[in-house]
């Protein structure tokens, strides 16, 4: 895949000003997505996933929120952050749309589902209300809502959780967006429904060649749908790469720890999991070194003092960790690799040259 990237985020920094000080929610995030590609951004609560996606949609609101100077979000060669209001509005909803986490609160409770879809269509496409309505019915059908003709005139509260989420998707895809951002689209749903929704999103991506940014904290979902994965921690992307690299050959202790936290079916019952100690740092005063250092089993003195550089591995796989520094004692690296072997049982199925880093 050597297509041109559709959306490119460069050094995105977002802060919120609160009583306790400035919350540096996103601290220099860069990534890109191509058409027809699904990028999963994974990370724990509060690591800045939603803020990143909102920044793309220019939904970070002053005076509390602030996108720092030097951040770039490039779409079709233009920096979205420098566009005027009108252009931004055309981008939102038209070129790029978003599915929010909790459809119950994200849909207007007092407006009929149909109107909420039609509203989006009319905003971005030059068609009549009547046509838009027809369109909306088709959309509802497309996302698998039975009896769309009657459902279109119902209110959100008359829909079940899964159906609401589908309606959200219908709104999102109403204008054939080039980019679809799905911010934890299934967190509030049951597994059986979750599976349905994920099938739907994958189908869209394949059919319409939409670029999808999927935000989640569930490795299971990522494993089943992503092309590329970016792992976020404390407002930064600590590791990013193709799906298989991340799952089978993680290079960052955090990624590894996350994978170790999920019980594997083949593991022994009641065996202790590979948990991470402590809690993520408060982004009000992010540590000056690696944000993960204090929770890391391989923490070195340097980790506490300096930010790690990015180490590039093959095919766009990169991680920010001091372990990959040339001068790191082999014993330390070995420790990490041993643990990885233990946690990732079928690591061997996926062989890459270990210490080969690409600049």
């Amino acid at each position, binding site marked *: 895949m050597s297509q041109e990237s559709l959306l490119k985020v460069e050094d995105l920094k977002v802060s919120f000003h609160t*009583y306790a000080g400035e919350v540096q929610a996103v601290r220099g995030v860069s990534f890109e997505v191509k058409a027809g590609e699904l990028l999963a951004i994974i990370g724990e609560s509060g690591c800045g996933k939603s803020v990143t996606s909102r920044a793309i949609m220019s939904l970070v609101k002053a005076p509390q929120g602030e996108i720092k100077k030097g951040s770039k979000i490039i779409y079709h060669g233009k920096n979205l952050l420098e566009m005027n209001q009108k252009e931004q509005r055309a981008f939102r909803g038209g070129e790029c749309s978003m599915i929010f986490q909790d459809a119950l609160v994200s849909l207007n409770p007092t407006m009929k589902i149909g109107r909420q879809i039609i509203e989006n269509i009319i905003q971005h496409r030059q068609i009549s209300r009547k046509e838009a309505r027809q369109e909306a019915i088709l959309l509802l059908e497309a996302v698998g809502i039975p009896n769309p003709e009657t459902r279109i005139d119902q209110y959100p509260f008359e829909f079940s959780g899964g159906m609401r989420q589908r309606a959200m998707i219908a709104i999102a895809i109403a204008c054939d967006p080039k980019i679809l951002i799905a911010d934890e689209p299934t967190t509030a749903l049951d597994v059986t429904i979750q599976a349905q929704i994920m099938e739907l999103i994958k189908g869209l991506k394949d059919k319409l060649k939409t670029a999808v940014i999927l935000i989640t904290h569930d490795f299971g979902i990522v494993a089943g749908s992503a092309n590329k994965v970016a792992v976020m921690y404390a407002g930064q992307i600590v590791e990013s790469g193709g799906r298989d690299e991340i799952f089978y050959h993680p290079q960052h202790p955090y990624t590894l720890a996350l994978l170790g936290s999920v019980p594997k079916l083949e593991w022994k019952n009641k065996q202790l999991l590979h948990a991470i100690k402590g809690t993520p740092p408060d982004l009000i005063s992010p540590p000056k070194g690696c944000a993960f250092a204090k929770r890391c089993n391989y923490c070195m003195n340097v980790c506490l003092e300096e930010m790690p550089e990015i180490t590039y591995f093959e095919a766009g796989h990169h991680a920010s960790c001091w372990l990959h520094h040339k001068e790191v004692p082999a014993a330390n690296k070995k420790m990490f690799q041993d643990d990885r072997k233990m946690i990732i049982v079928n690591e061997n199925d996926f062989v890459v040259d270990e210490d080969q880093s690409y600049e």
Partner: protein
Amino acid sequence: MNSLVDKRFELADQSRFDADEVVRPNISYWQDAWRRLKKNKLALLSMAVLIILFVMSMIGPGLSGQNYTTLTPEIKNLPPDSTYWLGTDYLGRDLFSRLWKGLRFSIFVATVAATLKVVIGCIYGAVMAYLGGFVDDVMMRIVEVLNSIPYLIVTLIILVVLGNGYLPLLFALCITNWTSTARMVRGQILKLRESEYIMASSALGASTTRVIAKHLIPNTLSLIILDMATSIPHIIFDETILSFLGIGLQPPAFSLGTLLSAGQEAMAFYPAHLLFPSLLLCLLVLAFNILGDGLRDALDPQLRD
């Protein structure tokens, strides 16, 4: 490699740091509320105004050193001068001192009535919420009935039956107001009762009194404070209206309402007699209202940031 570099890449001593560090300042709910209130300049200003008014109501009557109770018709309706800073009223009393004295009474009545109202409302509301079922239905009906009777008549009846003194007035003012508190407390307690931390407490075997004292009351307190802050201006107003209708206070006691109603009669000739009490009333109610708004924002847990 020098030893310095080695040190850099040595594994760090894990016991040296705490992965569970909490960096946010250690502040309680009330400190937090106070902090947020402090950020609201208008509310702070109102608070300052209220404090000044309060202090003035205490020391103001004595400040000018002029009499404000004895009627000295010889010096009535004097214009403001260096002895009588705001002039004298229609019976020769120092208006400046009277103003503050009246204010003192208005504040006193409002505060006491608001307290009474809140206490009655809380008890009633809590009992309703706590007993539930049939009792709740009946008590709710009573509230509904009370709400549907125009407050003026209830007030009047009380003042007439009990005579118009301080206590009946206070009683009358709170009896017409407490239902809203009761409803609010009831709602809050019903909500809290379902909350998991109350369940946790009872699962630990906490007695009812403990649940009430340790959980229900502290968690309703902010709403109660808010309720009180917002009802004070209401009560000041109600009292004013009652004084206007001549069913308020008994002389020699007087309030802003009394001054207003006397001032209204003198308006055409001595606008100051109406102007100053009106302004003071306006300022007082304004300050309470703005402070109430500020408190609402400061005490609302959802606005925590």
